[in-house]
């Protein structure tokens, strides 16, 4: 067990989950009081409602709806191709627009 797994284990045993994606080994399934973000390898409840209009070509993939991918919290960081200063400003403003959620 590496240090990351040890942290997951200790936190899971305390009924508390880390608040962000860390990678590594999946912890125990979230408890009822867990935050709305789920951890690596632990499928969230509600996944079964995902649209299945096309069978994923990859065994590792599940079709998801946009609503499952956007939260309501403000973003501080941006990831995307074509990352220019202008795009950075534009997207930051867009990120603040809750109508995009």
């Amino acid at each position, binding site marked *: 067990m590496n240090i990351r797994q040890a942290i997951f284990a200790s936190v899971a045993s305390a009924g508390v989950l880390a608040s962000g*994606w860390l990678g590594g080994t999946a912890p125990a399934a979230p408890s009822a009081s867990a935050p709305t973000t789920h951890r690596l390898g632990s499928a969230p409840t509600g996944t079964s409602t995902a649209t299945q209009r096309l069978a994923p070509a990859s065994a590792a*993939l599940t079709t998801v709806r946009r609503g*499952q991918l956007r939260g309501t919290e403000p*973003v501080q960081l941006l990831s995307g191709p074509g990352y220019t200063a202008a795009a950075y400003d534009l*997207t930051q403003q*867009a990120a603040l627009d809750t109508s995009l959620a």
Partner: protein
Amino acid sequence: MSMAGTDPQWVSDEEPGDPPVPRLANRAFEALGTVVSISAPMDPDELDAAVQTVRRVFAETEEYFGVGGRGSVEGLRRGEIELRYSHHRLRALYEQAISWRNATEGAFSPHTPTGPVDLRGLVKGWAIAHAGQALMDLELPHWSVTAGGDVLCSGSPFPAEPTGSDPFYGRHWRAGITDPFDPSALVADVPLAGTPGFTAALATSSGHGYGRSNAYLQVSVLAEDIVTADVLSKAILAGGSSTLDSAVREFGVAVLVSGHDGELLASAGWPLQLPA
């Protein structure tokens, strides 16, 4: 340059008598032909000092590898310089690239579609990783470095003292991913890191402008380090489902892909929102 940052809820959570938590501050500069941004919950003067260190890392990277203009990296990409006559540092980086090519069964390639060697992506990842290490060497637990749309972060934008119910020092960073059909909008956002000293990385690659067919329109990868995230996002874009399956299985990454028809597909590790 604007930046989202403060969260009033966290300010109101402070107990009377607690020392004030510095607001999230950010700085941006240009390097490696792109925009580099640094964010951290620090006093602006302290952040300026930290940013000087990061700027030096990027400047030294440009000098170290010969990036930009008439440098060696550009010369290789244009086919004007042969790799065997290039600096040993570039040849060492190329060896790393070949290791990634082997690990992805050829899906990742350090060559352009027309043949010359293109190490720009690896150089950027190298710089981001070393910038993050430099911030950790300064014993800064909470920070983010973004360059060219690749994200590496540690800790929290709104840190708090650890408690029994929150051993992770506060709320996570949140990163948005641009919509491949509308760059002014976001297609997803994800929580990152949350624990000082543990990095989380996010990289997004797009098939736009490559002039060749890719399996997906856009690929985002969550990993523990930025080079892995960047390389695997490019490999999955080119290699498709078989590369994606092996990346998830062998590297423990989480993946979100946008199909050419707008369909969104996520691996089991991708953080989804639970229904309200």
